[in-house]
């Protein structure tokens, strides 16, 4: 008791610590434990085997799924970053009236009022063989035969990712841009910097934290995704998440748990690399 009264901060962190313990640490520990279990068609068999990892780490399927997932993650990240930065830059520096700024910002979020599955599915009638895009292109005689790779392809998957996650880039970048002292821009121009030099040597370094936060969102969301990949690729390609989900749906929890642990470690490594470049704590 005396300890607590002397150190009330421990008492203050208790609720959060308990929540994290119960809802984050406990499930993760369970997953790690289960990943060493054995299983058959209908039961989990408590055990301590490395077979799940052995298979996972030696299978060519894992490798190709990871390559595919990295491909999706990096491509989506590059596109959402470019788009997000541009949109945020426009909002922050070109729109002068704070009211219009807010209105446009809200406008960006309007699509997010519907569920992301609906937003994804709505691409299907648009991109299909007899979809809007193909029939329009055919009508204006730009193409003779429908373009097949618009739907059920990697293109479709990345399109959906960009559509779904660009806002996650816009918001944090916009936020850090708004906090840039406008005098710095002025100073940069007065010192003779071109517009591009200003952007890359003044604005970009100053919104590093926003870029980092947005990147964390996009990369982790894409790395863990399964529904976008399976819907938009028509089940033709498999990300790591899709593999895990397949295993879960067949009651192969230990295999799925091992997959999840490896994915978790991969994402953590990716994040630690990102944190190498940007010290978020300092920047916030």
């Amino acid at each position: 008791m005396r300890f607590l009264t002397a150190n009330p901060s421990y008492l203050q962190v208790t609720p959060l610590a308990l929540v994290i313990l119960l809802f984050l640490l406990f499930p993760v520990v369970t997953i790690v434990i289960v990943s060493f279990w054995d299983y058959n068609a209908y039961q989990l068999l408590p055990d301590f085997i490395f077979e799940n990892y052995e298979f996972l780490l030696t299978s060519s399927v894992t490798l190709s799924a990871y390559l595919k997932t990295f491909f999706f993650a990096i491509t989506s990240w590059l596109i959402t970053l470019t788009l997000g930065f541009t949109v945020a830059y426009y909002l922050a520096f070109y729109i002068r009236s704070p009211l219009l700024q807010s209105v446009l910002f809200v406008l960006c979020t309007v699509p997010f009022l519907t569920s992301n599955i609906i937003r994804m599915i709505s691409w299907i009638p648009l991109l299909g063989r007899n979809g809007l895009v193909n029939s329009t292109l055919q009508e204006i005689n730009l193409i003779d035969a429908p373009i097949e790779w618009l739907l059920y392809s990697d293109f479709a998957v990345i399109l959906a990712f960009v559509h779904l996650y660009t806002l996650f880039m816009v918001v944090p970048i916009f936020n850090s841009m708004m906090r840039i002292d406008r005098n710095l821009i002025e100073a940069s121009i007065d010192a003779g910097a071109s517009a591009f030099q200003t952007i890359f040597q003044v604005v970009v370094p100053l919104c590093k934290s926003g870029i980092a936060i947005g990147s964390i969102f996009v990369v982790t969301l894409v790395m863990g995704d399964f529904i976008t990949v399976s819907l938009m690729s028509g089940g033709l390609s498999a990300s790591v998440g899709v593999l895990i989900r397949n295993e879960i749906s067949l009651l192969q929890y230990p295999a799925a748990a091992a997959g999840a642990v490896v994915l978790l470690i991969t994402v953590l490594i990716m994040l630690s690399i990102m944190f190498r470049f940007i010290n978020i704590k300092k920047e916030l």
Partner: protein
Amino acid sequence: MSFDDKKDLKDTLSASTEPKEERSGLSRRGFIKAAGVAGGAALGSGAITGFPMIWAQNIKDITLRQFGTGVSNLNAISQKAKEDLGINLELTALDSDAVAQRVVTQPRSFDIADIEYWICKKTFPAGTMQPMDTSRLKNFDKISQLFITGKLNDDSEIAQGTAPHTVGFVEGKESVQFASEPTNWMTLIPTIYNADTLGIRPDLVGRPITNWRDIMDPAFKGKTSILNIPSIGIMDAAMICESMGEIQYANKGNMTREEIDATIEILKAAKSEGQFRAFWKSFDESVNLMSSGEVVIQSMWSPAVAAVRAKGIECKYQPLEEGYRAWGGGIGLAKHLSGLELDAAYEYIDWYLSGWVGAYLNRQGYYSAAPSTSKEHMSADEWGYWIEGKPAQGDILSPDGKVMETAGAVRDGGSYWDRMGAVACWNSVMDENKYMVRKWNEFIAS
């Protein structure tokens, strides 16, 4: 077809009511006792009308929680059960994987499980269900022989795969060992079953389709699809490979590793050639693929064909030379059921077999477990169209009163005996299931 994600019927969706919270203040047991007393008081009041059989009265107001797949979890059934038996049936519709998970991992969350036979093979040995005493079922002898001996007629051959009769009985009340012969202890009472084949767009394929191998025809490159549910997809794939003459299987329902490898290699090659437009996982996806013209030939389930036709688009459930892949589901009892609840469950199951439900399901294009009882609840024309494969005399209506077919229409594949008699294999779970799923993942990721 299987029971996955079948959101075909509007009422199926609304049937997905989660089990309600237990009544507060009154324990479940206490409530049942009270209900028993109340039921006793109601005995002989003759409140139930419109049904030839007199159902037990003491089970009134008992609540049974049933979960299963969308196909047979229909609100209409729960309403009729309330009317006839007085029991409250709380239905939860899930996809078949979720059903299997729930049977094994949450045994107290249900009273009655509506599962497929191949799921039963996986889940019954987990010991969370109890077998049914067939001597307590008045309609037991009405159940189709297909589920008892595995033979539709005395001279028919038993199909490959998890044929329902092989997992239909266990050796004793406490046993989880499947019996090789019919015993007194039944694991599942069959509810519905059907024979699946390929669906085609007759207006777009441009030639007659007669074999499973036609899906691999280069002419349909980029316009075909198979379903991406490994345990069922592999069977369709096996039907295709066997039809191509590439592989001869000893038992398609229980392949060896070599057979699995060979099958997956053929699929992978076809995939890299661009033969498949997409793989589908849920009912709606297959309907959309077909109706949008993305694919012209694909594995399909019968209500999906009906759904495409309902949009005014030609679609045929094409019978093929090699036969059908069949599936069947049934309802079974949870281990924890006892006393009055167990009585109610038996009564409900008997009622299920007594005809009304069977007729209802027959009208959706499925088959019911006890054909003779459902006949009494159907018109001669309905029976002729759905079961005997005769041309319809007048409009054929769906259970909710929509016109499905008009006079002159004949069911694809013909009569019950033509279709169920030509089953090549049943949905199943293989001994090498783990290996098969890994190979299937390899195919999807390739």
